[in-house]
Structures are given as structure tokens and as C-alpha cells.
């Protein structure tokens, strides 16, 4: 990783594992049980050119828990981007004000573009249909936290696999750790063929199916996603697949004891509320894990060592 995080390809497997170790050590700090102002005096620029309250708050919380401070771009509608300022000019200004920036932008490639414009580290918080690597880091952290490892797990990815950048990026990352992947979706929302062939060519074991319920006993992770209405040309097409996967507590009786259910949230009705009380539910921890993953990432990019790091 040389100064920015734009895609997961910027990190080696060793760097990923080391970052997850750092994140684990920061758990008590993220919980507010320990005050560790490693980033005191540092300023994060939260540059969200499209709204994503959840991701923005997670970056902000991560910085503040480490004693640093945050400035926000503010409401996009009233910001200078609408008045015609280029991303380049906006980022050059931020480069002078802050020590590190998180960027979310509707246009693909915006994060690499900002990184080329700036000296400070850039963290990609989602660029169009492109990448969202901090989501992948928190997903990997959650999986490792539950299973104690990443290698060799069987992971089912369920729902909208066609348009969801989260599942694309996670699939690539899990394949790097030799996980077996089961892609479960209705035909209209299946994983893009380029991704399936990329993964297969690199030696990954991939199964594609539309049957969630038969897969449940075999998997270590079920990663649910939301099927979004705006992906469909008309209401009839949407109605055919809406609600096709609804995971309930009763469905999970066949699951392995340590199997976990994840979801990037917000959910609609893919996971019934009665799953929340089962031992399998992990989606709220997953959201919280975004804070520790981003804390560890900011320390790494700002060259700040985490005490106790030798362990």
C-alpha cells in the first residue's frame, strides 16, 4: 500500500492480515473503554459528494475515537461542486487543510483521480459503480472475528450480485484467501460473467445457484444483500424477484453452529427480525466493525504505530 487506499488491489494479503490485527487491538478504543489519542492533532476531511450517512459517520467516529478531528464537505447541494468547481480544485484545497481524506463520489475513478491530485492519503469511500475497499476490510474483519481465520471458508453471497459493488470486491478478496464461494441470486441479478471467469481462472471454487435454502447447512458465512427496486426497468420485473430471499430464524436450524449471517445494511426484508436474536446474526457488529477497520487504516496511512503491535 503506497499512501492511499483506492481498491483492495492496493493491499497484499499480508498487509490485509496485519491491518485486521491492528483493528482487533483497537476494539476497546472503538468501544470507548480505553482512550488512545494516537491521531491527536490530525484532521480528517470527509468529502462525501453523494450522501452516505452511515459510511461518513463511521469515518468520523474512527477519527474522533483516536483523538483527531474531522471537517465535512457539507451538504452537496450547497457545496462548490454544484457551482462548477472541479474535483481537482476542491481536492487541492483540502490537501492544504487536512492530513487525510475519505472520498465518496458518484463518478467512477474519482478516488484515484483525487489521489493523483493530492499529497495527503486518500481513502476511497465508494466511487460510482467502482470500489469501496473499507467496506471489504470491515467485512473481512467480521468474518475473521467469527471464525478466527479467513482461509478456506465457504461463503454464500446472496441477492443482487449483478450491481452490488460490495459483493464484487468481497468476492475478489475472499478468493485471494482461498475461500469457496457460492453465488446465490435470481438469474436477472447473477454475478457478472467477467467476475465469475476471472475468479475461476485464478483457481477459485465457485458455485452459482438460485437456491439459498439448500446451501445453508454447508456454509460458514451467509452474506445477504438488498435487491433494489431502482435496478429494474419496470415494477413487474421487480415484483418477480422482490422478497425472493427472506431468511428467518427457522431457516437457520440446519446451519452450522458457528455460521454467521452478514448484511451491509440497510436491510429491507431479506433478513427477518427474528434472526437478530440468533447466535448467527452478525450484521450490527459488522457495521460497528467499520469503525475499527477505519481506525486501523488511518493509523497505517498516517504512519502511526499502534502500541502493543508486536503481539
Amino acid at each position, binding site marked *: 500500500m503506497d499512501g492511499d487506499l483506492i481498491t483492495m488491489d492496493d493491499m497484499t494479503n499480508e498487509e490485509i492480515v496485519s491491518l485486521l490485527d491492528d483493528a482487533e487491538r483497537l476494539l476497546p478504543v472503538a468501544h470507548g473503554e480505553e482512550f488512545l489519542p494516537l491521531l491527536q492533532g490530525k484532521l480528517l476531511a470527509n468529502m462525501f459528494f453523494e450522501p452516505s450517512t452511515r459510511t461518513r459517520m463511521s469515518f468520523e467516529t474512527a477519527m474522533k475515537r483516536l483523538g483527531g478531528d474531522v471537517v465535512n464537505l457539507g451538504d452537496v447541494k450547497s457545496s462548490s461542486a454544484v457551482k462548477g468547481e472541479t474535483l*481537482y480544485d476542491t481536492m487541492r484545497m483540502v490537501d492544504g487543510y487536512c492530513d487525510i481524506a475519505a472520498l465518496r463520489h458518484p463518478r*467512477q*475513478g474519482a478516488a*484515484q*483521480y483525487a489521489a*493523483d491530485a493530492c499529497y495527503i492519503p486518500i481513502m476511497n469511500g465508494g466511487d460510482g459503480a467502482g470500489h469501496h475497499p473499507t467496506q471489504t476490510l470491515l467485512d473481512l474483519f467480521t468474518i475473521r472475528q467469527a471464525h478466527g481465520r479467513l482461509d478456506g471458508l465457504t461463503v454464500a453471497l446472496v441477492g443482487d450480485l449483478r450491481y452490488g459493488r460490495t459483493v464484487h470486491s468481497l468476492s475478489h478478496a475472499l478468493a485471494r484467501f482461498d475461500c469457496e464461494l457460492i453465488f446465490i441470486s435470481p438469474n436477472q441479478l447473477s454475478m457478472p460473467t467477467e467476475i465469475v471467469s476471472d475468479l475461476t481462472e485464478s483457481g477459485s471454487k465457485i458455485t452459482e445457484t438460485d437456491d439459498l435454502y439448500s446451501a445453508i447447512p454447508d456454509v460458514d458465512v451467509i452474506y445477504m444483500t438488498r435487491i433494489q427496486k431502482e435496478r429494474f426497468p419496470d415494477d413487474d420485473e421487480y415484483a418477480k424477484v422482490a422478497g425472493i430471499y427472506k431468511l428467518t430464524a427457522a431457516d437457520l436450524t440446519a446451519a452450522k453452529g458457528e455460521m454467521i449471517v452478514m448484511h451491509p445494511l440497510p436491510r429491507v426484508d431479506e433478513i427477518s427480525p427474528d434472526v437478530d436474536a440468533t447466535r448467527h446474526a452478525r450484521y450490527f457488529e459488522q457495521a460497528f466493525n467499520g469503525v475499527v477497520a477505519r481506525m486501523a487504516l488511518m493509523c497505517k496511512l498516517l504512519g502511526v504505530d499502534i502500541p502493543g503491535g508486536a503481539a
Partner: protein
Amino acid sequence: MSTSEMRRVTAINNGTVIDHIPAGSALSVLRMLGISDDRASPISLVMNVPSSKHGRKDIIKVEDRELTQDELDRLALIAPKASVAIIRSYAVAEKREVTIGKELLNVARCTYSNCITNNSREPLDHRLNVVKTDPLELRCRYCGRSQNMKELINNLI
């Protein structure tokens, strides 16, 4: 070029001769080099010449102009096996190699409409990484969108 092949094209006093262009690609080469609109230099073009090496080939002669290395690097994308001779006073003064670099800087635009570089006011360079050369595959440094030779010709800056 043999003497008989040479006779197909008028000898030039000063300029550049590009030989061994794949047959039928000469017009694309001119577009790639941006010299088709350059009215100052007379250009002769011979297409589908039988070639001892490659079946058939195209040849371009540009008078009174020595192509720069940057132009030759662009040429490499279409005609990686082209040979280039700089002519001074009716004689070959220099032979130049063409090479494909790792990156094309401001040669062509990204093809993806939602790419950040397709906001024409953004000032940074257009950068395409060369992923493969045979067949040519380029990928936008920013958004990662791939393009092939045909798309490249249509997106030249």
C-alpha cells in the same frame, strides 16, 4: 524495402517513411499520428503492397517532417512491427524503433461516460494503462474501463 517496392512510391527529399504497416491500417495510422489534417506536409500513401516479409503491407511517406518519438510511440499501438526511416537529402539518415510503452498519456479518452475524466473541465491527464499488446487492451488508470484498438481510434484526443 527492396528497390522494386521502393519504386511504387516517389522518392522524397526530406521526411519520414513508415514501412511495414499492416495492410489496410494506413488511414488509422494517419489518424493516430494526427497528421491527416496537417496540410503543410505532402503525404503519400501506398496500400496493399506485396511484401516479402508479411504478405501485404501499407507504406506512408510524410514529406518535410521528421516524426517525433512521441508520435512513433503512438504508431506502435497500431503497427508494432513498423519500421521507420528518417530521410534527409534522399538518403536514409536514421532508422527508428517503435515501442509500446506501459501508459498512454493524453492519447485517448476513457470510453466510460461516468468516468471522472469525462468531465471535460477536470484538468488532470487522460491516462490509459497498456494491459495487453496482442490484441491491444487498454485500461483507464482511474475507473478501470477497458478499451480495444477500435475504441482507441474513436477516442483519440
